[in-house]
């Protein structure tokens, strides 16, 4: 009997999975920025992911892409360059709120796309019957 195939292991599924990771990490970083909006000396942090992903996907060799993709993780960085208030805090609460909304929507879009892939696999397996 043939072994079960490795479902959701195609590049797109992996990318969507990583996007879910990244948006969750980003939401947490935004939450921390918002919690510390009044903390003297606090510098905002952010999560970088999209640029690294873009550079991984633009490689030529498919195996290289797969390997680099498997090692790709969202990275939290400190933003020390944004202008700060007199107490040293550089959190811009309006920007954080906007980012929060954007991140939430991106997370949901990724989840819906993943659900779609799962639904199509399931339809093929069950031949469209419940």
């Amino acid at each position, binding site marked *: 009997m043939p072994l079960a195939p490795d479902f959701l292991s*195609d*590049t*797109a599924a992996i*990318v*969507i999975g*990583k*996007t879910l990771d990244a948006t969750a990490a980003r939401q947490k970083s935004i939450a921390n920025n918002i919690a510390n909006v009044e903390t003297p000396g606090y510098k905002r942090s952010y999560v970088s992911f*999209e640029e690294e*992903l*873009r550079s991984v*996907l633009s490689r030529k060799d498919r195996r290289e892409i797969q390997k680099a993709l498997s090692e790709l993780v969202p990275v939290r960085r400190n933003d020390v360059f944004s202008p700060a208030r007199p107490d040293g805090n550089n959190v811009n609460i309006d920007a954080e709120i906007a980012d929060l909304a954007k991140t939430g*929507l*991106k997370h949901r*879009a*990724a989840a*819906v*796309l993943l659900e*779609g892939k799962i*639904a*199509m*696999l399931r*339809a*093929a397996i069950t*031949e*469209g019957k419940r």
Partner: protein
Amino acid sequence: MAISPIEEARGIASVTSVRRTENGTAVGGANETAASFKDAVKNALGEVNHLQNQTDEMAMKLATGDLEDVHRAMIAMQKAKLALDLTIQVRNKVIEAYQEIMRMQV
């Protein structure tokens, strides 16, 4: 992605589209129409595959931030889903019809 082959449908074809040649023998029929059934399904699956690839590409562009219009990715996905569902349903109906015919007493 594998959907079971549709060769069984060959049986239906043998009942239809049989031509009569000048000297009265029957030609055409089974092989020709079965081939076209198989091709039709193969083409449909090819189209489904193409739509799924397109969806995947849009999903990845959404992930990198290169696609701003989320609705385009969603519409692409729905197209792929619909195409797949249609293909599966048609394939099921054809098999059903074949099985019904085979049950008929001649």
